[in-house]
């Protein structure tokens, strides 16, 4: 048989057509995903059964929940033998769960107000559509929030802010003479500013005073939120610096960063917190009384910064070297190339990792309950559960704690996924 090659010329292109109409919708989905094989059918039925039993035991407990009463005995009375949760504890101890047991109730508006302002302050950081002018408020916010939550004269935060502002201005001026020099000069300027500002604060003790609340009176979920927000926002920049330092050409900087990162990663956070609680005091001059919250913030920040640095290092390594070369060949200097070209891309790649660390960090703030700080978990384990009124109401309290943390962490996770989609510009 001879094979004959027929010559063929197409004169018209075949027009586009829709895919073949097949069954669509819920029935098809169920058949494909739930009942596609005998094993699958068994698994589906087993899962349905598990969901049903779980629901069956939790639903009455939840729905029968008692919301009023002043002790666990009141709950038992009202329930009268039926299963049901004793949510009354949440209602009665609400202020303690949220603010801790020593924060003066007359001042609750202050942390509340700070929380509302926090939403305003992080809006421009989280959403690029928000007016850039709001960044000014973001810069001022930490000092304002400190004043609101801790109280005292407003001069303190103002001096602190002035010191930072002076440092930034000074280092901007000197940026062209080299990065290290600029940073050093900025630091010195800030120090000078703070020392002189200190005298000013001593003089103006009574200027715009809010009743001051000492750190040991902070507690509840507020404490978790304070630690979480402060530590996350400090550890990201610190982590970036560590990651860049680790890639530095200067051996000293490189080795400092490597040693720091490796050391921190090799030590459990709880150890660092004990160090913060007990040991750190020995390193400071005897008469300086460094605030416990500050010490804890330093430790948690250092801890998560090391992890974030490693995440970002991964992001930096994923960038082709051509990006840096292109930036250089256009005349951008190191700082500009980093800020405009390298970091935006490296950070974008690192978002899942950074969020992972941030969520972990936020949950780890509950560890401070072990060094006798009364955060949400500390409050529950300590004052509330050990009180005679609410002895034994574990489930309700810890479920509530879990819920609060879940809401925040799930929110962070959803935001990060949204952000990733938002930044999806490379169409790879």
């Amino acid at each position, binding site marked *: 048989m001879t094979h004959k090659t027929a010559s063929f010329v197409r004169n018209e292109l075949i027009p586009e057509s829709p895919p073949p109409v097949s069954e669509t919708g819920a029935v098809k989905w169920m058949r494909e995903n739930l009942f596609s094989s005998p094993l699958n059918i068994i698994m589906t039925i087993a899962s349905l059964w598990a969901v049903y039993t779980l629901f069956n035991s939790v639903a009455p407990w939840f729905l029968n929940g008692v919301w009023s009463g002043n002790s666990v005995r009141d709950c038992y009375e009202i329930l009268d033998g039926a299963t049901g949760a004793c949510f009354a504890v949440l209602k009665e101890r609400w202020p303690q769960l949220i603010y801790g047991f020593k924060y003066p109730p007359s001042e609750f508006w202050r942390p509340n107000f700070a929380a509302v302002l926090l939403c305003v302050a992080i809006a421009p950081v989280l959403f690029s559509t928000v007016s850039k002018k709001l960044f000014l408020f973001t810069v001022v916010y930490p000092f304002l929030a400190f004043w609101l939550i801790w109280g005292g004269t407003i001069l303190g935060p103002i001096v602190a802010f002035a010191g930072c502002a002076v440092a930034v201005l000074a280092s901007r001026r000197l940026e062209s003479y080299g990065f290290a020099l600029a940073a050093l000069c900025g630091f010195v300027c800030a120090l000078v500013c703070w020392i002189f500002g200190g005298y000013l604060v001593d003089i103006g003790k009574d200027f715009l005073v809010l009743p001051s609340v000492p750190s040991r009176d902070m507690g509840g979920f507020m404490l978790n939120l304070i630690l979480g927000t402060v530590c996350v926002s400090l550890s990201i920049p610190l982590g970036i610096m560590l990651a860049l330092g680790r890639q530095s050409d200067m051996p000293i900087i490189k080795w400092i960063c490597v040693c720091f990162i490796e050391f921190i990663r090799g030590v459990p956070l709880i150890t660092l917190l004990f160090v913060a609680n007990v040991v750190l005091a020995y390193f400071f001059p005897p008469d300086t009384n460094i605030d416990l919250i500050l010490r804890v913030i330093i430790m948690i920040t250092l801890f998560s910064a090391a992890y974030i640095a490693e995440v970002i290092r991964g992001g930096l390594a994923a960038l*082709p070297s*051509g*990006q840096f*070369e*292109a*930036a*250089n*060949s*256009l*005349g*951008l*200097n190191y700082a*500009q190339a980093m800020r*405009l*070209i390298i970091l*935006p*891309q490296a950070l*974008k790649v690192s978002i899942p990792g950074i969020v992972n660390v941030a969520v972990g960090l936020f949950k780890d703030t509950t560890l401070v309950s072990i060094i006798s700080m009364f955060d949400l978990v500390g409050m529950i384990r300590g004052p509330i559960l050990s009180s005679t009124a609410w002895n034994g109401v574990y489930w309700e309290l810890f479920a509530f704690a879990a819920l609060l943390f879940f809401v925040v962490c799930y929110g962070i996770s959803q935001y990060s996924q949204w952000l990733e989609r938002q*930044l999806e*510009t*490379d*169409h*790879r």
Partner: protein
Amino acid sequence: MTEQVHLEISDEIAIQIQNMNKWFGSFHVLRDIDLTVNRGERIVVCGPSGSGKSTLIRCINALEEHQKGQIIVDGIELTSDLKNIDKIRSEVGMCFQHFNLFPHLSILENCTLAPIWVRNTPKKEAEEVAMHFLEKVKIPEQADKYPGQLSGGQQQRVAIARSLCMKPRIMLFDEPTSALDPEMIKEVLDTMIELAEEGMTMICVTHEMGFARQVANRVIFMDQGQIVEQNAPEPFFNDPQNPRTQLFLSQILGH
């Protein structure tokens, strides 16, 4: 073939390289390079892979540091002084084999970034300049897209426009067409030819010999880190002197 580009070449020296040597560790990549480029010259550099072509042109804008000898660009000697390096880099444009556009920025932002941050051009003015050059490379309608949405040829033209936005006096090209599909090579070469016709000083590493014949006023052949032969395109292609040049040309023109 299209007509050859003929242009006046001035006596002014744009780049002067004297006795330049470079090592990667102990590997002697560039050996005793001497090269003087006058303003308006269009030089094509060719040679086998690994012969140091990329390294040579990367030394000219200090992406690589040379260890011995002198490189003077636009009257400024390249030393390790960062001020000089930044100055030279903003006078010398460079296009890479893999375009190296910034994927997180739109085409327009790619073009305006350097003028805004390095030259302190107001944003609006920078955008006008960018649009002007994007029109010149014939893709103004893509200004708001991202690099990932463009074809290779379009990306390389954007890369050229991005360099031009800095108003460089010298352009360096490192195999600008070798990562492109054949059908896109022409559009990039056309852009480069246009640039040459306007009198831009260019050093171009390429194996597009048609382009070399049409545009170059001098072709340089490198092998093992040395300049082995240099000549005007006609004699270079028709009558190569060095046996290594002959071998190389027979290999790339042979089929």
